[in-house]
């Protein structure tokens, strides 16, 4: 009984950590641009696929996964993060920057367009079929008190925690982070203070996309399969996590991700698997109606 509960909890925290990584990207971009970057879920997907291809190019052999080594695995992660950072930059430069002064609706639709475009480019180049993800970290299973853990789940916890600490340090303790916070409070005032808004926004996309790429690789390792449409549902849930935590708030995004992961797993485990997705939307609606600024956000008064 208790073992089952802890099992569901562990699994929930594991998937929740992936949601958290992706949610951070959503929340940071919304913070600086007030834009819901629908295409972010596809950056996550591209992260998984760039991991796939870089692993193969670095000589991964599915018959002998253990020979790949930790160094090359780390390289795969680095390559994927860089690739997605570039993708994020490209999207920002081509699709969002020209619309910076347009009314809010326009870039929202554009974001949806980019999302659909990337999904279908993925289908075109990678094929719609799911494919097995190279186990660059071979999976070993442990059992602790009736609860099954794997080294990959531990890796997910560790990597996400480290990245979130790094991000927190970045946003709170560095000059760039300060600039990011300034831009998210008031873009025009920040520009008047001498902050190069374009550079800051670009940087935000780079960081967010790199985090999404990491999420993609971790997700691929955990699920062992990837496909071009994998970002759709995962991205949506990560987005809800960002809203739950308070969109624009990095700590909130992390907390939101874990909460959504656990809620989803518990619902599937104790209520019914059919409601797994519905619970996420129910949480979304609940949050927006009861406390739209999220758990950690602050409500803004609209001045006329």
């Amino acid at each position, binding site marked *: 009984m208790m073992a089952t509960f802890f099992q569901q909890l562990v699994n929930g925290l594991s998937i929740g950590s992936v949601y958290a990584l992706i949610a951070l990207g959503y929340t940071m971009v919304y913070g600086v641009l*007030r834009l819901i970057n629908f295409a972010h879920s596809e950056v996550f997907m591209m992260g998984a696929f760039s991991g796939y291809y870089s692993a193969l190019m670095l000589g991964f052999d599915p018959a002998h996964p253990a020979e790949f080594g930790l160094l090359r695995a780390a390289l795969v992660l680095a390559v994927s993060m860089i690739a997605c950072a570039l993708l994020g930059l490209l999207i920002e430069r081509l699709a969002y920057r020209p619309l910076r002064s347009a009314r*809010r*609706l326009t870039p929202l639709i554009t974001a949806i*367009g980019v999302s659909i475009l990337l999904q279908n480019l993925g*289908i075109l180049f990678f094929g719609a079929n799911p494919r097995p993800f190279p186990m660059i970290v071979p999976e070993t299973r442990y059992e602790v008190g009736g609860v099954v853990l794997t080294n990959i789940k531990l890796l997910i916890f560790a990597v996400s925690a480290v990245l979130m600490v790094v991000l927190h340090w970045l946003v709170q303790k560095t000059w760039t982070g300060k600039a990011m916070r300034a831009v998210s409070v008031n873009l025009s005032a920040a520009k008047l203070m001498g902050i190069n808004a374009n550079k800051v926004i670009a940087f935000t996309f780079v960081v967010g996309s790199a985090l999404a790429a990491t999420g993609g690789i971790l997700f691929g390792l955990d699920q062992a399969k990837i496909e071009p449409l994998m970002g759709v549902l995962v991205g949506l849930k990560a987005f809800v996590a960002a809203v739950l935590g308070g969109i624009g708030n990095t700590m909130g995004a992390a907390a939101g991700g874990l909460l959504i992961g656990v809620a989803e797993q518990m619902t599937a485990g104790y209520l019914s698997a*059919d409601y797994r997705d519905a619970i996420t939307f129910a949480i979304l*609606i609940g949050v*927006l109606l009861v406390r739209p600024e999220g758990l950690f956000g602050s409500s803004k008064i609209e001045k006329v």
Partner: protein
Amino acid sequence: MLMWLKRGAMAVVILGVFYGLGRALEDNVIEYVLRIVLFCGINSILAVGLNLINGTTGQFSIGHAGFMAVGAYTTAYTVMHLSEALFPGQAELALGQTALVFVPALVLGAVAAAFAGWVVGVPSLRLRGDYLAIVTLGFGEIIRLIYNNSSRFGGATGYSGGRPLGLPIYTNFFWVASVGLLVVVLIGNLTYSSYGRALEAIRDDEIAAEAAGIPTTKLKVLAFVVSAATAGIAGGLFAHLQSTIQPNDFKFDKSIDMVVMIIVGGLGSVSGAVLGAFFVGITLELTRDLSEYRLISYALLLILLMLFRPEGMLGTRELRIPFVNRSKIGPA
């Protein structure tokens, strides 16, 4: 009194023309093409309705597929049970009998969708901009998931009315054209009336409108409910063009299709919505042969449109709308 008689006579004539045209098309045009035309017509109804809330009132809703679903399921369910009740055991119905079953079913579908619109609208319309968009998205998906888990309506595998041949195919040119014209006329008149002007005021500056004495919340909810009802009617027509309706027919993709229609046509323009609907319907079919490249071109089109011509084909201008006073449509 005389005016109403004149209007009544005109309505009968128009219905007769549509009926005749419908029969002529059915006899001379291949079903494949006619079906596409019908889909474009249903799209138009969806677009015109959505335009009222997104375009005219400026409240961004991206979950309207949910209301279409409510209308579709309610109409189908009503049709199956009503035809059993009124004409038990009869497989095929004559036109008069069809009307007796279909019209109340469509009305009920619209009412159900309007109710759903009210339930969603009242709490959601307190939010602005992006938040409203996300909430409507969430509600749209929840409605779909409710149908997905409902065994009465066939769950994930869909509702086909429990008959081997599926839902009866009532939707034809006559119904789509008649209902379509009705919807366009009603919404056109609404848009270019004092209510419409108030809605536009809400779009342009909600706080100023409130300060000027416009009951913004009431009107927003009204527009939302009306647009949900039209989506419901479109859903009902849709249901009786297919033999089955499934929750998968009403995914987020459908909501996005509707949004694309009104943006391509021109956000805020009623005739633009119809143009956009036809455009999307025809494009999706013409590009069928492109297979993998189809959705890629669709997405590229959307992005290019937003970058270079966000006001779509007509912007806020109008072509002639039948039965709407031309003089009321002011300058763009």
